């Protein structure tokens, strides 16, 4: 354990590193690339929706003949894009960015640890994630293309899909393995490697959010693992776990034995996928809480109620999964139960959001770029959450289910919600990770245009959905009832392309700030949590001296203190 400190080669330092910070950055860059790729898939879909049957500009000529016909999209390719957009964004974009990147980089720093509890396991998690991602991507090159049965892969449709679905299942097993190993690592790290004096109720809210998220990953993902194994058996070994008796596909009876249950897949899938929703949102809430506390120069209002709400959210998220299934005919008794739990689970989310809003009260707020993103998160996540309530009750859900309203609802939670929180995190911790500031002007351009276009994309979807337009339509213009909403579709599409342009300042900022921007000192935001006690950027092993914690995480503007912040790691109050 105590070999001489040798200079590491390039491969060991940047590719096969066991340093949590390097792994965090690896996760971050890979996830941003996947997010961009998933976004590109969606931009192609938006062309087909706005201008059906017309050749796709720029890329239409580059795609193979199984994907486009004279540059215009084919229906099967549209289905692949839809399924893979969801899969990539959720499992290869947001989760690796929120947990893999921010969790890895920030959690050990915030708890004062030299690294994760299992550094080599950490590297294995990242590698499994990359393998799973590559398996997903190469499935586009298969003769039948990638998976095309929606990101939910509902049976029996998925059982009869092309071999892209088998790759989806295989890729998913790798992604699940990655998340499981990562989750175990986070739990042990947070419980065991906290610095002296860092009791649980002195943990920053972000660490709490990662702890709960890790438990969700460890306990929810195995259900999808089981489901993926069963579906793989259905596809490869000819079993009928998800195929009912007497199944007729395309007018002819299916040769399978039957006796299975299509609903079983949905139960297993949503048993994962509902806690997964909280995996997507909780780290975002954690980041926003950190950024708000720093920039309001006030303690978070209601830190303890927020933590208890977080724990309750995590616990109850295992009991609401079937609110995705009201329309399946599972019965009113089941629906009643899940309506009640769904209404209850909205309470802790509202508590957390309310605490964050009240934290702004009476503060002299600073408005750097991360704070803009964090502040935008609050109403955006609020809209996403509130529009979910009608979906959580079976009666209104009968009208809204599988419509664009649903798409608008959950994208408000995840896109201007979580992704804005992720951007807040990038701008907030960038000076620590790179040693340089990020350009404020470019950041503001990035924020305002992203904010505008995000709403331009998702707000029209709500109205389209209420007008009765279904999701997953290949060509909305052939339906009379959808005609009236076509103007909104075109608006959404142009907003999506505008959102892509709005990311250009971010990309420029990313590369410019790495080399040209002014250097950051150790604690540029004058924050109180432990990650700002390290040198900038933190070396391998993180802390020069083992830190000791003397107080809670958000002691800003303490009366009588010399400065307006009293760091956790400084003995005398400021």
């Amino acid at each position, binding site marked *: 354990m105590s070999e001489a400190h040798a200079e590491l080669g390039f491969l060991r330092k940047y590719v096969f590193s066991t340093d949590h910070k390097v792994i965090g950055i690896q996760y971050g860059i890979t996830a941003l690339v996947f997010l961009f790729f998933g976004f590109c898939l969606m931009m192609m879909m938006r062309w087909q929706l706005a201008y059906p049957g017309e050749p796709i500009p720029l890329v239409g000529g580059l795609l193979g003949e199984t994907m486009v016909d004279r540059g215009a999209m084919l229906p099967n390719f549209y289905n692949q894009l839809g399924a893979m957009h969801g899969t990539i964004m959720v499992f290869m974009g947001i989760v690796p960015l929120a947990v893999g990147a921010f969790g890895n980089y920030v959690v050990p720093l915030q708890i004062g640890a030299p690294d994760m509890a299992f550094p080599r396991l950490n590297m294995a998690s990242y590698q499994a994630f990359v393998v799973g991602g590559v398996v997903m991507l190469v499935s586009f090159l298969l003769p039948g293309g990638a998976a095309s049965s929606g990101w939910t892969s509902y049976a029996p449709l998925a059982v009869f899909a092309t071999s892209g679905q088998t790759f989806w299942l295989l890729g998913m097993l790798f992604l699940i393995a990655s998340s499981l190993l990562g989750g175990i690592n986070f739990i042990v790290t947070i419980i065991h490697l906290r610095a002296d004096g860092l009791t649980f109720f002195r943990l920053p809210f972000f660490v709490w959010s990662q702890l709960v998220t890790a438990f969700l990953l460890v306990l929810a993902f195995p259900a999808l693992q089981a489901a993926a194994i069963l579906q793989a058996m259905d596809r490869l070994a000819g079993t*009928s776990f998800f195929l009912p008796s007497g199944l007729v596909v395309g007018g002819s009876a299916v040769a399978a034995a039957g006796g299975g249950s299509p609903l079983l897949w949905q139960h297993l899938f949503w048993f994962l996928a509902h806690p997964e929703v909280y995996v997507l949102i909780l780290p975002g809430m954690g980041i926003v809480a950190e950024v708000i506390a720093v920039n309001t120069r006030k303690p978070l209002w209601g830190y303890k109620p927020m933590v208890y709400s977080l724990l309750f959210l995590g616990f109850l998220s295992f009991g609401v999964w079937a609110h995705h299934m009201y329309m399946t005919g599972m019965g009113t008794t089941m629906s009643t139960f899940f309506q009640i739990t769904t209404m209850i689970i909205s309470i802790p989310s509202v508590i957390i959001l309310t605490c964050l809003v009240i934290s702004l009260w009476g503060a002299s707020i600073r408005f750097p770029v991360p704070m803009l993103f964090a502040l935008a998160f609050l109403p955006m996540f609020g809209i996403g959450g509130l529009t979910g309530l009608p979906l959580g009750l079976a009666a209104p859900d009968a009208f809204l289910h599988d419509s664009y309203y649903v798409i608008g609802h959950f994208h408000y939670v995840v896109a201007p919600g979580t992704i804005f929180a992720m951007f807040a995190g990038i701008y907030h911790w960038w000076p620590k990770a790179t040693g340089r500031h990020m350009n404020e002007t470019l950041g503001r351009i990035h924020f305002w245009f992203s904010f505008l276009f995000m709403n331009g994309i998702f707000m029209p979807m709500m109205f389209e959905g209420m007008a009765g337009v279904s999701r997953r339509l290949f060509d909305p213009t052939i339906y009379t009832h959808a005609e009236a909403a076509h103007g909104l579709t075109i608006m959404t599409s142009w907003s999506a392309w505008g959102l892509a342009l709005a990311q250009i300042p971010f990309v420029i900022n990313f590369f410019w700030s790495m080399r040209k921007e002014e250097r950051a000192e150790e604690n540029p935001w004058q924050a109180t949590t432990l990650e700002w006690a390290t040198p900038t950027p933190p070396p391998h092993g993180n802390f020069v001296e083992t830190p000791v914690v003397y107080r809670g995480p958000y002691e800003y503007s303490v009366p009588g203190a010399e400065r307006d912040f009293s760091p956790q790691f400084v003995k005398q109050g400021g």
Partner: protein
Amino acid sequence: MSSTIVIPYQAEAHPLTGVTSGKLGIWIFLASEIMLFGALFSSYVLLRVGTGAEYWPSGVEAGLNVPIGTVNTLILITSSVTMVMSWASLKMDKFAAFKFYLGATIGLGSLFLVVKGFEYSAKFSHHIYPAVGWPEATDPSTFFGLYFTLTGLHALHILLGVLVNLWLLVYGAELWKTERVRFEGRIEISGLYWHFVDLVWIFLFPVLYLL
């Protein structure tokens, strides 16, 4: 290795949890394994009683060999005993006894797989595959689909345990000389996993063979 950094609680117990990081990690891993097999057992229940299946063969009716299954159960329970003995021998500083008992665990685990292999091949020779099943049943495939999936996944777990124990047996002696406490910890962790896999079989055997 990569550096001079020292990660605490690899060999000593954390005051709050009373265990090392590795042991806490394996317990959390086993929790996720419980969720995996729990999801599969739940699927079994739902497929058996929730699909309106008119006929569901018991293991005996389906042609599973209960005596052989019983023998395999005994083999696995014995291997759990030898696993504990190997750890206890290590604690009592009897390295030769440790090697004997760990070797016995590996041998019994392998024997379990061999017996399982004979059971599988007997089914295959009767043209019973996951998809074909009990020939006279109206609702034939789900029982054998579950049988092969559940026992197959369990066998993979056994195989993993055998390989890990083999690695510890062959390369472990090195660690025993340099970092004794950590090596004891690894044997204990491997043992916890082994007992879990054993326990899964204790549930699988009656569910598939007897019910």
